[in-house]
Each structure stands twice: as C-alpha cells, then as structure tokens.
C-alpha cells in the first residue's frame, strides 16, 4: 500500500469554525472531544484509530443530527464527510501490509505445466464430446411429433392482496391523471358588452355602474361585475360613453356621450 497521505476533499477551514459553534463532541471509549479534532489527529497519525469504534461514532453522529430538531443539512454533511474520513483512515490502518512473496521458480514452472496440461485435457475432452452421436446430426428426434394435447381449464387463484393492490393502482393512476379545470359559470365579455350597450343607449344622467349590472346569484354576480367593468372600459375607449370616479374605490359612474 502506498504510504502517501491521501488528500481528501477536506472541509474548507471556514466551516470548521461554524461547526465548532454547533459542536459535535464525541464521547466514547478512546476519545472525547470534537470530531474535527479527531480527524486532525488521525490524519497526522497521532492517535491509534484501532481504539476508535466507528459504530459508536456513527451512533453519536446520528443522535446529534436527529437531536438538532430541524437538522441543518450543510452541517450534517460536513460531519458526514469527516466521519467518513475517519472510517476510511481506520480501515486503511487495519489492512495488513503484506509484502508480495517472491514466486519461486519451481512453483512457476509447476503452474505453467499444470496450465498446459489442463488446456490439453480440455481440448481432448472437446474432441471426445464432438465424437459422440449428436442429436440432429447422428441421432434424430421424432420427425412429426403430434405434441401432447392439452385442454385448459382456467381457475386463477383468488388473491385478495392482488385485487386490493390493483384497485390501489387504479386509484393512484386516476389521482395522477392531471388537473381538469372546472368550468365555472361566467358572464362573458360579449354578453356584458351587449347588455351595457343596450343599457347606456340615450343615458344622459351620470349613473352608477353597479346599477347597470343584472342581478345574479353567487359567483355569477362577481363575474358580471368584472365583465361589465371591462365592457365599460371598452365602450369608453370607443368614445361611446364617459366614465368617472371621484377617488380611488369611489363608485364608478357613467353616461352616454
């Protein structure tokens, strides 16, 4: 294994301070203190990671993240990276450093001879196999088999679970089938224009717009108000009527020109 220190994507120094303020302080056998300090010591090999339980580390990490109430993802992620590095360094320290044994020449020769013998054996076996009377070549199946007649009686098992799942599937599909807007009752612009044109013909007096709207129930009344106002603006634009409003939110009045 290479002795070179792996260079991790270590957390930027700025965030360490932020984390320290939040504080994930590990309390376990072999180590008590902040996680980032543990990682520092592990990197510089100033602590024996064999004594550190990764399981306990993970447990305390999870407890800390869950204990935060609303976990702050960026902090949790920093800790996760640090904990992962500790785990990685520990696993690296546990791997045995084994020098590759020098292969002995006799063993190499024996292995080569064995390999050659195996290949020869398989070539012989393949030849023997090929000498056997093969179906379709030296041996033949029946040329015109009638086939085995079968009469099928359907009797599918009744599986309530499958039936319920099917219904769940259908409902789910229909819920997802998208939104079809409900067609609401409205007074259309054309209707309002026609009504207002008729109502204002020869109207000399200033009259409140609200009086000219035909009474209607519920949403239709609000739609009538909106459409009639739009129609009034349209007629005013064509100089067929005059509009006035004293102040904002005051009643709108109109008369024919």
């Amino acid at each position, binding site marked *: 294994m290479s002795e070179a220190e792996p260079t991790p994507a270590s957390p930027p120094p700025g965030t360490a301070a932020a984390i320290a303020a939040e504080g994930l302080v590990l309390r376990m056998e072999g180590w008590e203190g902040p996680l980032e300090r543990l990682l520092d010591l592990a990197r510089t090999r100033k602590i024996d990671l064999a004594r550190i339980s990764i399981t306990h580390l993970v447990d305390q990490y999870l407890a800390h993240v869950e204990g935060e109430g609303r976990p702050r993802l960026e902090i949790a992620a920093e800790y996760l990276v640090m904990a992962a590095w500790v785990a990685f360094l520990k696993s690296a320290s546990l791997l045995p450093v084994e020098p590759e044994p020098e292969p002995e020449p006799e063993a190499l020769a024996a292995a080569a001879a064995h390999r050659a013998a195996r290949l020869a054996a398989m070539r012989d076996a393949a030849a023997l196999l090929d000498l056997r009377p093969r179906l379709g070549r030296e041996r*033949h*199946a*029946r*040329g*015109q088999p*009638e086939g*085995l*007649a*079968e*009469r*099928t*009686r*359907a*009797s*599918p*098992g*009744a*599986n*309530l679970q*499958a*039936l*319920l*799942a*099917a*219904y*769940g*599937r*259908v*409902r*789910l*599909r*229909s*819920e*997802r*089938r998208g*939104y079809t807007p409900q067609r609401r009752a409205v007074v259309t612009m054309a209707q309002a224009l026609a009504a207002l044109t008729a109502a204002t013909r020869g109207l000399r007096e200033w009259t409140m717009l609200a009086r000219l709207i035909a009474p209607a129930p519920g949403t239709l009344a609000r739609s009538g108000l909106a459409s009639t106002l739009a129609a009034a603006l349209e007629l005013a634009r064509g100089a067929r009527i005059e509009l006035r409003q004293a102040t904002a939110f005051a009643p709108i009045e109109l008369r024919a020109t």
Partner: protein
Amino acid sequence: MSDLGLSLRLVEALLFAAREPLSPAELARRLPPGTNVPPILAELSTTYAARGFVLAEHGGRWAFHTAPDLAAALVHERVDSRSLGRAALETLAIIAYHEPATRAEIEEIRGVAVSADTLGTLIELGWVRPAGRREAPGRPLEYRTTPEFLRAYDLAHLRDLPGLADLRAAGLLAAEPPAALRPASEPMLPGV
C-alpha cells in the same frame, strides 16, 4: 429382438425421424439397394399393432402415430391457475368497489379502454355478471360481482373490502400525490 435385420431397423428409424409420411419408394431410395420394403412395412405394422403407437398407411404413405384408442386418455386437462392479468384484475376490482358499474365507468376509472375480452374472462370465471341496464342514454349494461366472487375471495360482503384510507395505510396506495393536490377530505367510496 437381436435378430432384427438392419433393413427393418432402418425403416423403423426412417419412419420415426421423417417429417412427412413416406411411400415405399421413398423408403427404398434410402435403403440398401434391393431391399424389399413392403414385407418390412407389413411386419412392422403387426409388431406395433398393440403398442402405444401404431404404423399405418394413408394413401400409400406410411407413418407412425398414436394408437387411436389412447387418444382420449392422452388429452391432459390442465388447470390454468395463473393469476389474472393486470387488466382483468383492475376491472374486477373496480366492479367490486363501484358496482353496479358500466363499461364506460370502468374505462373512466382505469383511464384506458376495457376490452370485451377482459370482461368476458371475468364473466367466464363466474366472478362478474351483467345485471340489467342503466336507465341512461344508450341504456348501457351494468356489471356486478357474483356470490362466487365473494366465495373465491373469502369475503362475507362487498362492504368488507377495505376503504381507500385502509389501502393507503397498508401501503397499497403507496405513492401519495403532493399534499397541495390532494382534496382536503378523502373522497368516499360509493356503496362501501
């Protein structure tokens, strides 16, 4: 059978492997020159007369086939216990939850067309039956489940079927739509 002549064995093998019935002339062409084929065929048809398959002649051509008296015994009745296909299962579920349901209603809920075949399968199984016509334009047929359906699924009543909330709790309606799209109150199932 050690005294079987080579020719007889060859005729046997040729007739066995042939993909069509063979005439004596066709057989002779594949046999050692001078082989007298008809006596061999006669001997073979006697040999096999009482066995599971017989050698018979039809229009001058010879072939082995299954002994006629065994034909009936050889037909195997297979019970097809494969579970219902997806379309049939969904259709059955919709009828069970919404009965009486017309085909148009089933299609409306499934979101896809329901083939006559699918309904036919369910009717043939005896789990669904047409039950009158709806007094609506086109007077469509209404479908209902049968007592056999209840028996097969071990249900005392249709109302024993779990409601939507139960299905969701059981994870059978797993993927939930976003909360914003869900109606405030769960739609009630008709007739459940």
